């Protein structure tokens, strides 16, 4: 039983160092959705980096491409979605980086579960209804070359790790509550001790108490197992509680990314500002929430220039025809329109309010 425990016991100091190293680099990723009215660019020129042992959050409103993006990482993306361009470099410790997008389904299978685990969005229906939960934990391990006996022996330990009793292994999914099912899924996700867990809305449809427990569990797993977590959620408080760094996604693109505190306290992108202003605070005065004007544009017909320009309170002339680049503004304090912003290192934004984002050549058209 002890043979199959932690694969890499990294010392805390080394872990800190590792956190500087990139584990997953998404570079210029395009995902197109083929429809009868043409290809919709659901995810367009997406760039983001997740470091070792880091919790990275992706925030954004419904339909902005969050789920499609993480499904692409695992290549479980469904027709008619298709990755058309870009790389996803995955660098497990002690191994050369590999471009996941260049792998065949058979090669990709070896990475799924073993190196990159997945916590799906519809966790309520993600377990096989006619198989005992224990067997569903076991079959994943068996698929990656662990003997059935060893895998079975590991089940109680895995269930304890996610706060469930061992007897849950003998139950069928319909005998479990929503929170228990989610925990079983997490147990499956950690069974192979992956380097990265991709969690898509792991707390949606769960009540606040269970939500908190699930988030605590994820946090503990990060500390104990040294795993990195890429978490997708539309729920900003979830990000504020859990993540180290956040990427804000709008209309298929990452518009801002950086450490969580400054990104929540002093967001740089006007969309991110609107998003943060949409969160009501308990105890605050009951004002009308500001929110964001207008509706999400359609992937079939993104606006020219900056995709947010027709909803943006700070819109300028350049925004209507020049797409801004995701770039690092010069760190320091500066006046941005009517706001004062202190910009730290490793804080990227794609907005013409920051001259660094405006392409130097000028007049770049898509």
């Amino acid at each position: 039983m002890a043979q199959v425990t932690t694969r890499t016991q990294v010392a805390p100091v080394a872990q800190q160092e590792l956190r500087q190293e990139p584990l997953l680099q998404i570079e210029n990723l395009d995902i197109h959705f083929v429809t009868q009215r043409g290809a919709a660019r659901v995810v367009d020129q997406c760039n983001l980096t997740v470091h070792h042992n880091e919790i990275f959050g992706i925030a954004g409103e419904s339909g902005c491409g969050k789920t499609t993006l993480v499904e692409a990482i695992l290549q479980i993306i469904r027709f008619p979605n298709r990755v058309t361009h870009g790389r996803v470099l995955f660098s497990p410790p002690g191994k050369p980086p590999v471009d996941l997008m260049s792998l065949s389904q058979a090669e990709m299978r070896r990475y799924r579960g073993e190196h990159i685990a997945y916590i799906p969005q519809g966790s309520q229906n993600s377990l096989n209804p006619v198989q005992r939960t224990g067997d569903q934990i076991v079959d994943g391990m068996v698929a990656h070359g662990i003997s059935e006996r060893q895998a079975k022996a590991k089940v109680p330990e895995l269930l304890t790790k996610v706060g469930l009793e061992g007897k849950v292994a003998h139950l069928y999914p319909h005998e479990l509550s929503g929170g228990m099912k989610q925990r079983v899924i997490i147990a499956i996700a950690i069974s192979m001790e992956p380097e990265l867990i991709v969690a898509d809305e792991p707390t949606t449809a769960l009540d606040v108490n269970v939500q908190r427990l699930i988030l605590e569990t994820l946090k503990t797993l990060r500390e104990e197992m040294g795993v990195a977590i890429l978490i997708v959620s539309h729920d900003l408080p979830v990000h504020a509680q859990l993540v180290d760094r956040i990427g804000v996604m709008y209309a298929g693109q990452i518009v801002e990314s950086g450490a969580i505190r400054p990104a929540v306290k002093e967001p740089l992108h006007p969309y991110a500002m609107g998003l943060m202003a949409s969160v009501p605070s308990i105890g605050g005065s009951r004002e009308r929430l500001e929110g964001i004007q207008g509706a999400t544009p359609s992937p079939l017909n993104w606006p020219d220039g900056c995709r947010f320009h027709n909803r943006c309170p700070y819109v300028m002339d350049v925004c209507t025809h020049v797409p801004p680049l995701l770039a690092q503004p010069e760190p320091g304090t500066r006046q941005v329109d009517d706001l004062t912003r202190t910009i730290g290192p490793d804080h990227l934004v794609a907005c013409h309010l920051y001259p660094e984002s405006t392409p130097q050549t000028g007049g770049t058209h898509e």
Partner: protein
Amino acid sequence: MATQIPSTTFEEFEGQEVQQERLLEKKMLLSPAMRYVLRRIGLYLITLWGSITASFIFIRLIPGDPIRAMVAQMQLQGGYNTISTSQSMSDFYEKQFGLNGNLLQQYLHYMNRVLLHLDFGPSLLSYPNPAMDLVKRGLPWTMALVGTSLVISWILGVVVGALVGWARKSRWADTINNISLGLSHIPAYFVAVVLLFIFAYNFPIFPANSAYDASIKPGWSFAFLWSVIQHMALPVIATVLVFAASWLNGTRALVIQILGEDYLTFASAKGLKNRQILLGYVMKNAWLPQISALALSLGAIINGNVLVEQLFRYPGVGQLLVMSTQQKDVNTMMAIVTILIVMTLTANLIVDLLLPLFDPRISYSGK
């Protein structure tokens, strides 16, 4: 606060109800499983009675008087020709066949004879032999034919259907699916005619009629069994082609639906091998509904079998049913119909009682 919380809260109400339910359960002597079995058997008996009564009424409603026709035939042959003798002969035979009195009296007489003595009365086809004897002679042949067709078509249809659904985008799966869509809409007897024409007439590979070669003595000899298999081949193939096609279509649709389920996405995200997903996730979820469908299809396959037997002159109860209908042999018809009803309903009962053992989501408590 404007709204006062009522003195009895919802939880308390619920609590009382749950307590009452528990008390009820304690009072009940039978376990939920036992109650389910008893309820299901009760339902079985009621359905059995209803369908036998309905077929009794409908068969008696067929116009024509077989007894008078028979007596007239006898008088022609025998030459005696008085009204009184013909009347007394008719009365005698009507009583023999249980056809005297009004419908209710006939029904009571019939139920009494069947329930207490398992006797359906004499047959007209081979008077004075009991109808039951004729049925007993044909039943093993029919059961062998229907049983073989049912098992082969179910296994073939479910397995191939699952594979076709699994590989739905490939060309071979598409081809099989189109062929089977066509086949499932052709009646079995038509396929039988085509097979007869090709494999018994044009290329005489298989025998065209009866159940075994008359020159071989029936018994547990290899020659006899081989002859039986040869004679059974064409009728079985005709039925299997049609019924396997409809199983195939059903299972394919089921599998495609399963492939869209969240648990399948998660299964591939776990890095499972295709074989694991197909067997443990797709097949396991697809074959359970098809077991319940198996029992329901028994009636359809028996119906289809009647005309197939007739075409191949197969000595089963199907052919017997056609002959007895032509002669208006009421007792033989009733014997066949009753026994087929009992077989179909019993098969359904057995599947219903066994299904909770296969499917973890079905519990005996019926909740």
